[in-house]
Protein backbone atom coordinates (compact mmCIF):
# COMPACT_ATOMS: atom_id res chain seq x y z
CA UNK A 1 0.00 0.00 0.00
CA UNK A 2 1.25 3.39 -0.86
CA UNK A 3 -0.37 5.20 2.01
CA UNK A 4 1.71 7.37 4.21
CA UNK A 5 1.32 6.47 7.82
CA UNK A 6 2.22 9.34 10.05
CA UNK A 7 4.44 8.61 13.00
CA UNK A 8 2.26 6.73 15.43
CA UNK A 9 0.35 9.33 17.40
CA UNK A 10 -0.23 8.56 21.05
CA UNK A 11 -3.56 10.32 21.18
CA UNK A 12 -6.86 8.91 20.15
CA UNK A 13 -7.49 8.88 16.49
CA UNK A 14 -11.22 9.40 16.57
CA UNK A 15 -11.76 13.13 16.81
CA UNK A 16 -14.37 14.43 19.19
CA UNK A 17 -16.90 16.54 17.33
CA UNK A 18 -16.53 20.26 17.68
CA UNK A 19 -19.23 22.00 19.62
CA UNK A 20 -18.92 25.46 18.13
CA UNK A 21 -20.58 26.38 14.89
CA UNK A 22 -23.03 24.33 12.92
CA UNK A 23 -21.96 21.22 11.08
CA UNK A 24 -22.03 23.18 7.84
CA UNK A 25 -19.60 25.79 9.08
CA UNK A 26 -16.86 23.25 9.57
CA UNK A 27 -17.48 21.25 6.46
CA UNK A 28 -14.61 21.01 4.03
CA UNK A 29 -15.21 20.33 0.38
CA UNK A 30 -12.63 18.93 -1.93
CA UNK A 31 -13.82 19.41 -5.47
CA UNK A 32 -13.28 16.92 -8.23
CA UNK A 33 -10.38 18.93 -9.59
CA UNK A 34 -8.25 18.43 -6.51
CA UNK A 35 -5.61 15.87 -5.72
CA UNK A 36 -4.15 15.58 -2.26
CA UNK A 37 -1.22 13.48 -1.25
CA UNK A 38 -0.95 13.49 2.48
CA UNK A 39 -2.85 13.19 5.69
CA UNK A 40 -6.04 15.01 6.55
CA UNK A 41 -7.25 15.75 10.03
CA UNK A 42 -10.58 17.37 10.73
CA UNK A 43 -12.91 17.56 13.66
CA UNK A 44 -15.69 18.52 11.31
CA UNK A 45 -17.15 17.18 8.15
CA UNK A 46 -15.18 16.36 5.06
CA UNK A 47 -16.56 15.90 1.55
CA UNK A 48 -14.28 14.41 -1.02
CA UNK A 49 -15.09 14.56 -4.69
CA UNK A 50 -11.51 14.56 -5.83
CA UNK A 51 -8.63 12.25 -5.21
CA UNK A 52 -6.92 11.74 -1.88
CA UNK A 53 -3.98 9.55 -1.06
CA UNK A 54 -3.33 9.35 2.62
CA UNK A 55 -4.86 8.89 6.01
CA UNK A 56 -7.99 10.74 7.02
CA UNK A 57 -9.21 11.44 10.52
CA UNK A 58 -12.52 13.24 10.63
CA UNK A 59 -15.77 13.41 12.47
CA UNK A 60 -17.71 12.64 9.34
CA UNK A 61 -16.40 11.71 5.93
CA UNK A 62 -18.36 11.72 2.72
CA UNK A 63 -16.80 10.41 -0.45
CA UNK A 64 -18.89 11.81 -3.28
CA UNK A 65 -19.73 10.09 -6.55
CA UNK A 66 -16.50 11.06 -8.27
CA UNK A 67 -14.34 10.83 -5.20
CA UNK A 68 -11.51 8.41 -4.69
CA UNK A 69 -9.62 7.68 -1.52
CA UNK A 70 -6.56 5.55 -1.24
CA UNK A 71 -5.73 5.11 2.39
CA UNK A 72 -7.24 4.57 5.79
CA UNK A 73 -10.00 6.57 7.33
CA UNK A 74 -10.95 6.95 10.96
CA UNK A 75 -14.24 8.68 11.53
CA UNK A 76 -17.47 8.58 13.43
CA UNK A 77 -19.53 8.45 10.27
CA UNK A 78 -18.45 7.42 6.83
CA UNK A 79 -20.66 7.72 3.78
CA UNK A 80 -19.35 6.47 0.49
CA UNK A 81 -20.73 7.12 -2.95
CA UNK A 82 -17.41 6.97 -4.72
CA UNK A 83 -14.44 4.68 -4.68
CA UNK A 84 -12.15 3.80 -1.89
CA UNK A 85 -9.22 1.55 -1.36
CA UNK A 86 -8.06 1.05 2.17
CA UNK A 87 -9.42 0.53 5.60
CA UNK A 88 -12.40 2.17 7.22
CA UNK A 89 -12.60 2.52 10.98
CA UNK A 90 -15.97 4.05 11.68
CA UNK A 91 -18.89 3.67 14.04
CA UNK A 92 -21.40 4.19 11.29
CA UNK A 93 -20.72 3.24 7.73
CA UNK A 94 -23.06 3.83 4.81
CA UNK A 95 -22.24 2.52 1.38
CA UNK A 96 -24.31 3.96 -1.40
CA UNK A 97 -25.29 2.05 -4.50
CA UNK A 98 -22.45 3.67 -6.44
CA UNK A 99 -19.82 2.83 -3.83
CA UNK A 100 -16.78 0.75 -4.63
CA UNK A 101 -14.81 -0.35 -1.63
CA UNK A 102 -11.71 -2.43 -1.48
CA UNK A 103 -10.10 -3.26 1.81
CA UNK A 104 -11.54 -3.61 5.27
CA UNK A 105 -14.47 -2.03 6.99
CA UNK A 106 -14.27 -1.95 10.76
CA UNK A 107 -17.70 -0.80 11.82
CA UNK A 108 -20.27 -0.73 14.52
CA UNK A 109 -23.25 -0.22 12.27
CA UNK A 110 -23.22 -0.58 8.54
CA UNK A 111 -25.71 0.06 5.78
CA UNK A 112 -25.08 -1.18 2.29
CA UNK A 113 -27.24 -0.17 -0.61
CA UNK A 114 -28.06 -2.55 -3.41
CA UNK A 115 -25.53 -2.15 -6.16
CA UNK A 116 -22.54 -1.31 -4.03
CA UNK A 117 -19.38 -3.09 -5.03
CA UNK A 118 -17.56 -4.34 -2.02
CA UNK A 119 -14.48 -6.40 -1.85
CA UNK A 120 -13.76 -6.14 1.82
CA UNK A 121 -13.90 -7.84 5.12
CA UNK A 122 -16.29 -6.17 7.50
CA UNK A 123 -15.36 -6.84 11.09
CA UNK A 124 -17.79 -5.59 13.70
CA UNK A 125 -16.37 -3.75 16.69
CA UNK A 126 -17.97 -2.29 19.83
CA UNK A 127 -18.09 1.52 20.06
CA UNK A 128 -15.35 1.49 22.67
CA UNK A 129 -12.97 0.05 20.10
CA UNK A 130 -13.26 3.15 17.98
CA UNK A 131 -13.22 5.54 20.91
CA UNK A 132 -9.97 4.21 22.25
CA UNK A 133 -8.24 3.65 18.94
CA UNK A 134 -4.77 5.13 19.15
CA UNK A 135 -2.84 3.39 16.46
CA UNK A 136 -4.16 1.49 13.54
CA UNK A 137 -3.51 -2.21 13.39
CA UNK A 138 -0.45 -2.88 11.33
CA UNK A 139 -1.21 -5.50 8.79
CA UNK A 140 -3.49 -5.00 5.88
CA UNK A 141 -4.03 -8.67 5.33
Amino acid at each position, binding site marked *: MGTVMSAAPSRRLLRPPRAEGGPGALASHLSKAITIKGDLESDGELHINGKVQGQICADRLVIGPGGYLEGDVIARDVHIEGRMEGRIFALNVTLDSTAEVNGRIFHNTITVAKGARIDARMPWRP*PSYFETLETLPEARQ
Partner: protein
Amino acid sequence: MSMFNRNDKETDVSAPDKPRDVTSASVAAMPKPIQPVAAPAPTPDLSSAKSAGPSVISKALKITGQLESTEDIRIDGEVEGDIHGVSVTVGHGAKVKGSVYGQTVELAGTIEGKIEAKKVILTSTAHMAGDVIHQDIRIESGAYIDGHCRPGTNKTDYKPAVKPN
Protein backbone atom coordinates in the same frame (compact mmCIF):
# COMPACT_ATOMS: atom_id res chain seq x y z
CA MET B 1 -28.64 -12.82 17.08
CA SER B 2 -28.97 -9.33 18.41
CA MET B 3 -27.45 -8.14 15.19
CA PHE B 4 -30.40 -9.42 13.26
CA ASN B 5 -32.84 -7.88 15.65
CA ARG B 6 -31.15 -4.59 15.25
CA ASN B 7 -31.38 -4.76 11.52
CA ASP B 8 -35.05 -5.64 11.72
CA LYS B 9 -35.78 -2.29 13.23
CA GLU B 10 -34.42 -0.56 10.23
CA THR B 11 -35.33 -2.19 6.98
CA ASP B 12 -34.79 0.53 4.45
CA VAL B 13 -31.34 -0.47 3.33
CA SER B 14 -32.03 1.12 0.00
CA ALA B 15 -32.44 4.59 1.44
CA PRO B 16 -28.86 5.64 2.00
CA ASP B 17 -29.72 9.23 2.73
CA LYS B 18 -31.11 8.47 6.12
CA PRO B 19 -28.76 6.21 7.93
CA ARG B 20 -29.14 8.39 10.97
CA ASP B 21 -31.95 6.35 12.39
CA VAL B 22 -29.85 3.25 12.38
CA THR B 23 -27.06 4.92 14.17
CA SER B 24 -28.98 6.66 16.87
CA ALA B 25 -31.08 3.61 17.57
CA SER B 26 -28.21 1.22 17.86
CA VAL B 27 -25.86 3.50 19.65
CA ALA B 28 -28.52 4.27 22.21
CA ALA B 29 -28.92 0.58 22.82
CA MET B 30 -25.25 0.19 23.57
CA PRO B 31 -23.56 1.08 26.79
CA LYS B 32 -22.13 4.41 25.86
CA PRO B 33 -18.79 5.55 27.16
CA ILE B 34 -19.12 8.83 25.33
CA GLN B 35 -21.89 10.98 24.04
CA PRO B 36 -23.74 9.29 21.21
CA VAL B 37 -23.33 10.11 17.59
CA ALA B 38 -22.29 13.59 16.63
CA ALA B 39 -24.83 16.19 15.73
CA PRO B 40 -26.60 14.70 12.77
CA ALA B 41 -25.36 16.13 9.55
CA PRO B 42 -28.48 17.04 7.69
CA THR B 43 -26.88 17.60 4.32
CA PRO B 44 -25.73 14.38 2.73
CA ASP B 45 -26.55 15.49 -0.80
CA LEU B 46 -24.51 18.65 -0.45
CA SER B 47 -21.54 16.72 -1.73
CA SER B 48 -22.87 16.28 -5.21
CA ALA B 49 -24.06 19.87 -5.34
CA LYS B 50 -20.64 21.09 -4.35
CA SER B 51 -18.62 18.82 -6.56
CA ALA B 52 -18.23 21.49 -9.21
CA GLY B 53 -17.44 24.41 -6.93
CA PRO B 54 -14.16 25.41 -5.42
CA SER B 55 -12.46 23.26 -2.84
CA VAL B 56 -12.90 24.53 0.66
CA ILE B 57 -10.57 23.58 3.46
CA SER B 58 -12.55 24.60 6.51
CA LYS B 59 -10.99 25.75 9.73
CA ALA B 60 -11.59 22.36 11.25
CA LEU B 61 -9.33 20.68 8.74
CA LYS B 62 -5.60 20.21 8.83
CA ILE B 63 -3.77 18.81 5.85
CA THR B 64 -0.24 17.49 5.91
CA GLY B 65 0.83 16.96 2.37
CA GLN B 66 0.52 18.29 -1.10
CA LEU B 67 -2.55 19.79 -2.70
CA GLU B 68 -3.03 20.08 -6.40
CA SER B 69 -6.05 21.43 -8.13
CA THR B 70 -6.98 22.67 -11.55
CA GLU B 71 -9.62 24.82 -9.97
CA ASP B 72 -9.95 27.26 -7.13
CA ILE B 73 -8.99 26.50 -3.58
CA ARG B 74 -10.06 28.29 -0.46
CA ILE B 75 -8.19 27.57 2.73
CA ASP B 76 -9.50 28.47 6.15
CA GLY B 77 -7.74 25.70 7.99
CA GLU B 78 -4.17 24.58 8.20
CA VAL B 79 -1.96 23.18 5.49
CA GLU B 80 1.56 21.87 5.85
CA GLY B 81 2.80 21.35 2.36
CA ASP B 82 2.69 22.84 -1.07
CA ILE B 83 -0.43 24.08 -2.78
CA HIS B 84 -0.93 24.25 -6.50
CA GLY B 85 -4.11 25.85 -7.69
CA VAL B 86 -5.56 28.35 -10.09
CA SER B 87 -6.98 30.82 -7.66
CA VAL B 88 -5.85 30.19 -4.12
CA THR B 89 -7.41 32.10 -1.26
CA VAL B 90 -5.92 31.79 2.17
CA GLY B 91 -8.57 33.11 4.53
CA HIS B 92 -8.24 35.00 7.76
CA GLY B 93 -7.01 32.67 10.47
CA ALA B 94 -5.74 30.12 8.03
CA LYS B 95 -2.17 28.91 8.15
CA VAL B 96 0.00 27.52 5.41
CA LYS B 97 3.50 26.18 5.82
CA GLY B 98 4.85 25.65 2.38
CA SER B 99 4.79 27.13 -1.07
CA VAL B 100 1.68 28.36 -2.76
CA TYR B 101 1.50 28.41 -6.53
CA GLY B 102 -1.34 29.78 -8.60
CA GLN B 103 -2.56 32.29 -11.10
CA THR B 104 -4.00 34.38 -8.32
CA VAL B 105 -3.12 34.10 -4.67
CA GLU B 106 -5.03 36.11 -2.13
CA LEU B 107 -3.76 36.08 1.41
CA ALA B 108 -5.63 37.14 4.52
CA GLY B 109 -4.10 34.58 6.81
CA THR B 110 -0.59 33.32 7.37
CA ILE B 111 1.87 31.79 4.97
CA GLU B 112 5.30 30.57 5.99
CA GLY B 113 6.99 29.72 2.79
CA LYS B 114 6.68 31.12 -0.66
CA ILE B 115 4.09 32.56 -2.98
CA GLU B 116 4.56 32.22 -6.69
CA ALA B 117 1.72 33.62 -8.69
CA LYS B 118 0.82 35.98 -11.48
CA LYS B 119 -1.32 38.09 -9.26
CA VAL B 120 -0.75 38.37 -5.55
CA ILE B 121 -3.00 40.17 -3.10
CA LEU B 122 -1.95 40.62 0.50
CA THR B 123 -4.86 41.94 2.49
CA SER B 124 -4.60 43.92 5.70
CA THR B 125 -4.60 40.80 7.88
CA ALA B 126 -2.03 38.97 5.83
CA HIS B 127 1.08 37.58 7.46
CA MET B 128 3.63 36.54 4.93
CA ALA B 129 6.93 35.07 5.99
CA GLY B 130 8.86 34.26 2.88
CA ASP B 131 9.38 35.35 -0.66
CA VAL B 132 6.75 36.52 -3.05
CA ILE B 133 7.30 35.99 -6.74
CA HIS B 134 4.71 37.84 -8.73
CA GLN B 135 3.88 39.78 -11.83
CA ASP B 136 1.23 41.91 -10.28
CA ILE B 137 1.03 42.56 -6.57
CA ARG B 138 -1.22 44.45 -4.25
CA ILE B 139 -0.34 44.93 -0.62
CA GLU B 140 -2.89 46.49 1.63
CA SER B 141 -1.98 48.59 4.60
CA GLY B 142 -1.56 46.40 7.65
CA ALA B 143 -0.16 43.43 5.83
CA TYR B 144 2.96 41.92 7.35
CA ILE B 145 5.61 40.76 5.02
CA ASP B 146 9.01 39.35 5.80
CA GLY B 147 10.77 38.30 2.65
CA HIS B 148 11.65 39.34 -0.81
CA CYS B 149 9.08 40.55 -3.26
CA ARG B 150 10.34 40.10 -6.71
CA PRO B 151 8.75 40.03 -10.10
CA GLY B 152 8.79 36.67 -11.71
CA THR B 153 9.72 35.96 -15.28
CA ASN B 154 7.21 37.14 -17.77
CA LYS B 155 6.35 33.65 -18.80
CA THR B 156 2.68 33.13 -18.72
CA ASP B 157 2.28 30.10 -16.58
CA TYR B 158 2.88 29.67 -12.94
CA LYS B 159 5.30 26.84 -12.72
CA PRO B 160 4.48 24.01 -10.40
CA ALA B 161 7.26 22.06 -12.09
CA VAL B 162 10.06 23.28 -9.86
CA LYS B 163 9.31 22.07 -6.39
CA PRO B 164 11.50 23.26 -3.56
CA ASN B 165 11.78 20.64 -0.90
